[in-house]
């Protein structure tokens, strides 16, 4: 007798409370066949159709297991589970008389597929849950099939279908509402598809289908909602091809985010359209900026000027007086530059006002520089700096002196000292030291390396910090000076 059969017998005797149970068991154990016996019972149960026989075989196996110390219960447990599933599908209502071997061969996945195919959804879901299959392969997949089938039921209203789907599917991971909606759309139920898409959490998934269904407005707002700018671009470029220009612009107007993205696109790709967009919004400031930018791309001066003139008009419409005036100035400057370029070949076009004046002074065109200074109301300070530097550069020291005396310098005279020193002309620099205000006199003396003078000025002003500054420039050979400064410093500190 096979050990399994003996074990079955032993268990029967045990249930009858007969001591034979022990006898049989001992016999199996003596041959060290208990493990094999349990295995045989489990396997046999698997092949049985009758559930009562299955049960008694499994109970025998379970009984035998108790006397083993290191027996893995895995195959026992899985056989129990699988039998439960097999018994369920062998039921007359389902009528799949599968053997255990067949089942193993075809795998659980296929079994579920067959159930789904035959629309035994509840059973399929129960099986998935019972066998703890991960949602993605299990419950969610079945639900997806169920929903796809549900949306094809012609006798039900859109409302009731979408409600039913939502109730069952809820927010199960792995069920994509957009897939279900796509199915609905395929079956010609667009309204239902839109309703279903509303449940889709991932806006990215909603958009392509909405476009396919020609719900472009909705697609646009969903794309905007998602925050994914690439998606917005995609819808926008789709709309652009689908709609006439007027409608397209109107649609964008209602979606500021999409509109600004489209503007970005136009800035890079379609300058002309950009203009139309600003025009539509009456955005004169941006229009003006657009013309200014455009003017810099123009090679010919006439076209440049005419673009700038348009910019001026737009700036005026935008009530940006400053920019309008500045742009007019720019035009004035361009005209001036060309005139001089024509007359004297000065090569001024494109220079800034400051650079133009600089160039004119360098070319000795004093009068023209003065004219710009007046016409453009250049602040005195800046013009003085410019002239001072220009004269020093050309080493026109007499002119410089005359200039310094023309009126009181708005930039003071320390500037004269420093600029002369930059040109390494100490002789000229010294001329201006006395004109420097008392506050800056120490600095001026130091600039021309006149330590004595600096010390005198500092002591006169009783300024400790200035004395310190002079001291820091003294070297060891200036012993006397150092002593004098230290004394003065000490006495200044006392007071």
């Amino acid at each position: 007798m096979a050990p399994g059969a003996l074990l079955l017998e032993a268990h029967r005797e045990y249930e009858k409370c007969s001591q034979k149970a022990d006898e049989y068991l001992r016999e199996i154990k003596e041959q060290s066949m208990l493990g094999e016996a349990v295995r045989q019972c489990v396997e046999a149960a698997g092949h049985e159709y009758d559930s009562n026989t299955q049960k008694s075989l499994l109970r025998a196996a379970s009984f035998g297991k108790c006397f083993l110390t290191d027996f893995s219960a895995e195959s026992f447990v899985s056989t129990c589970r699988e039998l439960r599933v097999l018994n369920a599908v062998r039921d007359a209502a389902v009528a799949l008389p599968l053997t255990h071997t067949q089942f193993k061969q075809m795998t659980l996945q296929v079994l579920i597929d067959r159930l789904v195919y035959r629309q035994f959804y509840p059973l399929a879901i129960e099986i998935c849950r019972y066998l703890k299959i991960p949602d993605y392969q299990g419950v969610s997949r079945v639900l997806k099939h169920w929903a796809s089938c549900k949306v094809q039921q012609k006798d039900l209203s859109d409302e009731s279908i979408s409600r039913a789907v939502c109730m069952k599917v809820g927010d199960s991971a792995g069920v994509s509402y957009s897939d279900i909606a796509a199915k609905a759309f395929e079956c010609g139920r667009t309204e239902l598809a839109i309703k279903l898409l509303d449940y889709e959490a991932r806006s990215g998934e909603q958009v392509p289908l909405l476009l396919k269904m020609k719900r472009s407005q909705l697609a646009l707002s969903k794309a905007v909602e998602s925050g994914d700018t690439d998606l917005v671009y995609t819808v926008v470029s789709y709309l652009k091809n689908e709609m006439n220009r007027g409608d397209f612009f109107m649609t964008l107007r209602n979606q500021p985010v999409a509109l600004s993205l489209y503007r970005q696109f136009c800035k890079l790709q379609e300058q002309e359209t950009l203009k139309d967009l600003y025009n539509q919004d009456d955005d004169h400031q941006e229009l003006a900026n657009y013309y200014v930018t455009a003017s810099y791309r123009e090679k010919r001066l006439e076209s440049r000027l005419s673009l700038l003139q348009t910019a001026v008009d737009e700036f005026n419409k935008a009530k940006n007086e400053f920019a309008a005036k500045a742009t007019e100035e720019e035009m004035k400057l361009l005209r001036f530059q060309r005139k001089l370029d024509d007359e004297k070949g000065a090569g001024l076009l494109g220079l800034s006002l400051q650079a133009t004046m600089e160039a004119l002074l360098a070319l000795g065109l004093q009068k023209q520089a003065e004219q710009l200074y007046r016409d453009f109301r250049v602040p005195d300070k800046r013009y003085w700096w410019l002239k001072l530097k220009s004269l020093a550069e050309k080493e026109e020291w007499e002119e410089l002196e005359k200039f310094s005396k023309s009126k009181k310098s708005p930039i003071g005279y320390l500037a004269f000292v420093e600029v002369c020193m930059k040109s390494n002309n100490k002789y000229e620099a010294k001329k201006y030291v006395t004109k420097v205000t008392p506050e800056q006199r120490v600095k001026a003396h130091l600039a021309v390396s006149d330590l004595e003078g600096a010390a005198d000025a500092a002591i006169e002003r009783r300024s400790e910090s200035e004395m310190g500054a002079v001291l820091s420039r003294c070297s060891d050979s200036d012993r006397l000076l150092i002593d004098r400064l230290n004394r003065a410093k000490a006495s200044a500190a006392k007071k």
Partner: protein
Amino acid sequence: MAAHLSYGRVNLNILREAARKELREFLDKCAGSKAIVWDEYLTGPFGLIAQYSLLKEHEVEKMFTLKSGRLPPADVKNIIFFVRPRLELMDIIAENVFSEDKIHSSRDFHILFVPRRSMLCEQRLKEQGVLGSFINIDEYILDLIPYDGDLLSMEYESAFRECYLENDQTSLYHTAKGLMTLQALYGTIPQIYGKGECARHVANMMLRMKREFAGSQNQILPVFDTLLLLDRNVDLLTPLATQLTYEGLIDEIYGINNGYVKLPPEKFAQKKQGEASKDLPTEAKKLQLNSAEELYAEIRDKNFNAVGAALSKKAKIISAAFEERHNAKTVGEIKQFVSQLPHMQAARSSLANHTSIAELIKDITTSEAFFDNLTVEQEFMTGVDTDKVNTYIEDCIAQKDPLIKILRLVCMQSVCNNGLKQKVFDYYKREILQTYGYEHILTLSNLEKAGLLKPQTGSRNNYPTIRKTLKLWMEDANEQNPNDISYVYSGYAPLSIRLTQVLARPGWRSIEEVLKMLPGPHFEERQQLPAGLHKKRQQGENRTTLVFFLGGVTYAEIAALRFLSQMEDSGMEYIIATTKLVNGTTWIKSIMDRPEAQAP
């Protein structure tokens, strides 16, 4: 190689490893020898993820820069384009592919979009008739790149401009995606705070994305306790100010790019014994700057005035260590000494480098020009004479100092005065246009749009209130042994960091008034954690906050946050993330408009 990323509170090396793994997987998808054609902008950030050796291991034999025309010859099976999703780049790729097909027909083309593929770009390739030539079109999700153990950046240069001038929120979408990736690796961040429009938008997208993933719960124990999102336009002042930390000054003066700085070579000439330095190197000295270098980690965040002392202290320690050799008597002691030699030598060369850099910087910081500029900045920040035309600025314009310097100062005055008086405003603008050229009218218009430069409107100047409430100016900032973040600007405490500090303690409720004065909404959101993931905090264990600066962050601000992390009683550690590491100059530059070359 990237060990310094894992020293901090949060192991950012996990992020880097994840990025490397994905790169390898993509490379292996294209079997056979490869050449990569680079969108030049990407090479810097990529260098932080993978060196050439990794690419080489995966059969990358050649690398080119993407440019129009024909591809350089290369005997490889695959040509892979690594590009940002930009239309103008698509046109170049199309050109490349067209000119290529006629010569070789057996080469396979691939595109790797960084950080995300784009339907718009693919559509463009289709229009150009080359989409079919590509075997693989893939995306490489590289949003947040680890720059240091506590620092992440997207290096998205145009983020500020796009968000505040062009209303284009692409960068914010990438930010939200990047934060989702970060949460996938480091757990859901339970608390989100924010201030500003962009912050609100990012938080909304994050919450939305989380809903989209409903069902799949993140089972990782949260590493971050809090996320703070800050708009750059909440604090426009800080980046305008000259940074006074060591690292900040290196960036201000020489510019740090993707962790590297290029320095004038003269100071770094190797002086070998007995050899006169005949030929000075002419190529810029390139140094990598990060916390992997012990000395740099120690001094980078110090006020520059404290760096000299730190360097000389270090010098003493190092020479003392070298002196040890005389005490080594036994063979064992000598052996131990020798084993430490490489480390000591590295320390010595690092010391030499930083001494040279500090000398270079000192030449500049002790100059009169630097001093005058700083004085004016500090006057503005303390509210002195912000409502009249400033003589120093006037003089600088007259001297034709660099335009960006002028813009930084003028904008600073405007911000510190909550707008300039119309007369002052127009005067500055006119001076700039007349001196630097009328084309800058577009730049000025941009600065106005960004709120950096504006005329005063009816409302009164609220900057003094903000300054007082948040203690933005500290009279006696201690540069050597700081006790407050204001040391990073020698007196000015960055507004953004004050907001961060107050949030940690005592909370934003204490500054409601000021928050209302700053632009954009402030908000708080909570993200539910799955049961069982609530952290049980050990006693004395610090909390961790991720501070995300939308629109850029400066090194001085980073230094201030590191200072807060190190404060013993702060109870908070900060990890910093941003769209771009900026300084006043790079930041202003990104907002400037340069019309195409002027007519000759």
